[in-house]
């Protein structure tokens, strides 16, 4: 199935990165405590609809993360991606053990992460390709997927080489077992249901067959 994808310039079909982030932002309710991963997930914060107040957590010790500061910021106010950030009024600083108590203790509502692979049973792989010469690095990903109530993934539907990232089973080392609830790709919004991947929404101009061709697991239609 995956070969078909390589014949298409994926960037011309489906949602852009910002549109993926915007779509994910629609699902974040007022009052949610949210942790956003590095990359496309970070963009979600820009698109939360007016009128909703969302509190952003960064696992290096801040609740109430604000946008990138216009003045360039300061080296001791950074996010988990080590980028300079701001803090909103009502923020709180705390140490790492307290920060991961929030995560592990189930106090955060939503975490939006990137992914290398997502399996139809909700398994997530996003930290290592398992290549023997790679420098392994995991950060807080395993804690986030183990602790946060709802884990969402934002990812391109296929790799740069056109390989599917949504699979029956992950082939890369796992980050967590059965943890993903919903996946936002450039082609569709897909829930991990007890029956497997269920397509909730398709990007404009994309049909189920097109997405299925680029997915290495069976996709269920929204109303199936």
């Amino acid at each position, binding site marked *: 199935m995956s070969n078909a994808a390589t014949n298409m310039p994926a960037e011309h079909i489906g949602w852009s990165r910002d549109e993926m982030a915007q779509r994910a932002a629609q699902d974040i309710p007022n*009052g949610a405590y949210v942790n956003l991963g590095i990359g496309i997930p970070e963009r979600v914060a820009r698109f939360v609809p007016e009128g909703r107040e969302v509190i952003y957590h960064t696992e290096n010790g801040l609740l109430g993360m604000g946008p990138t500061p216009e003045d360039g910021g300061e080296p001791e106010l950074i996010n988990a991606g080590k980028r300079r950030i701001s803090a909103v009024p009502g923020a*709180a600083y*705390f140490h790492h053990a307290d920060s991961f*108590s929030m995560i*592990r203790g189930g106090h955060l509502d939503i975490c939006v992460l990137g992914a290398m692979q997502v399996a139809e049973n909700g398994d997530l792989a996003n930290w290592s390709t398992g290549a023997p010469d790679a420098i392994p690095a995991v950060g807080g990903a395993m804690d986030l997927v183990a*602790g946060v109530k709802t884990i969402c993934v934002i990812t391109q539907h296929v790799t740069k080489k056109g390989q599917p990232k949504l699979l029956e089973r992950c082939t890369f080392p796992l980050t967590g077992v059965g943890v993903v609830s919903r996946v936002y790709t450039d082609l569709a919004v897909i829930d991990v249901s007890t029956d497997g991947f269920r397509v909730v929404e398709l990007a404009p101009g994309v049909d189920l067959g097109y997405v299925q061709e680029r997915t290495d697991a069976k996709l269920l239609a929204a109303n199936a």
Partner: protein
Amino acid sequence: MIDKQIASPAEAVKDIFDGATVMVGGFGEAGSPIELIHALIDQGTKNLTVVNNNTGSGHVGLAALIENRQVAKMICSFPRTANSLVFPELYQAGEIELELVPQGTLAERIRAGGAGIPAFYTPSSVGTPLAEGKEIRQFNGQDYVMEFGLTADFALIKCRQADRLGNLVYNKTARNFAPIMAMAGHRTIVQAREIVPVGTIDPESVVTPGIFVDGIVDVGDPQHESMLVAEGRTYP
């Protein structure tokens, strides 16, 4: 907008159900959320399991809740103190259950519960009756006892200042169990001496970040247990 303020203690405790586990902040009277406890007495919720370091004093606050036969079980470290009259009598009559936990183990169990740690090992109580029946395990040649994390359906605590987001700071030794109970309570209700605008509390000095707090009630001039006891007051 997020606004965790609740109009009254009565409304704040209304979801507490018969049979619930309720953590109640305070060490003696310091930090005891007496107005929330009294609202729970007014509500009459029964068969509670209450977690507190003590069992209250006189006939007000936690002691009155016990006296009103709303508590089936206490989990605490020191159930008798100078003015504790109610618990000892009910306990000796076999009318209330007691789980006695060393104070540091109680604190760590609550913190673990709030931090998603289901169990841990501690040296406290090894070789004593309080370790009997529990798993003992050696690490580096020393014995430790396994203890379980403790969570609760509700936590009732008291603070000095809160904002609408639930950021809290406390007053002196009234802090005690409140920050960890706020973590371990599935629903944490706070009575605040003062509710201040967001941004008032220094982000460097927040003790309990708002993520751990679900409801805040303004109780600007709380009663003091020791004064009520000295006056011979009872509740209800």
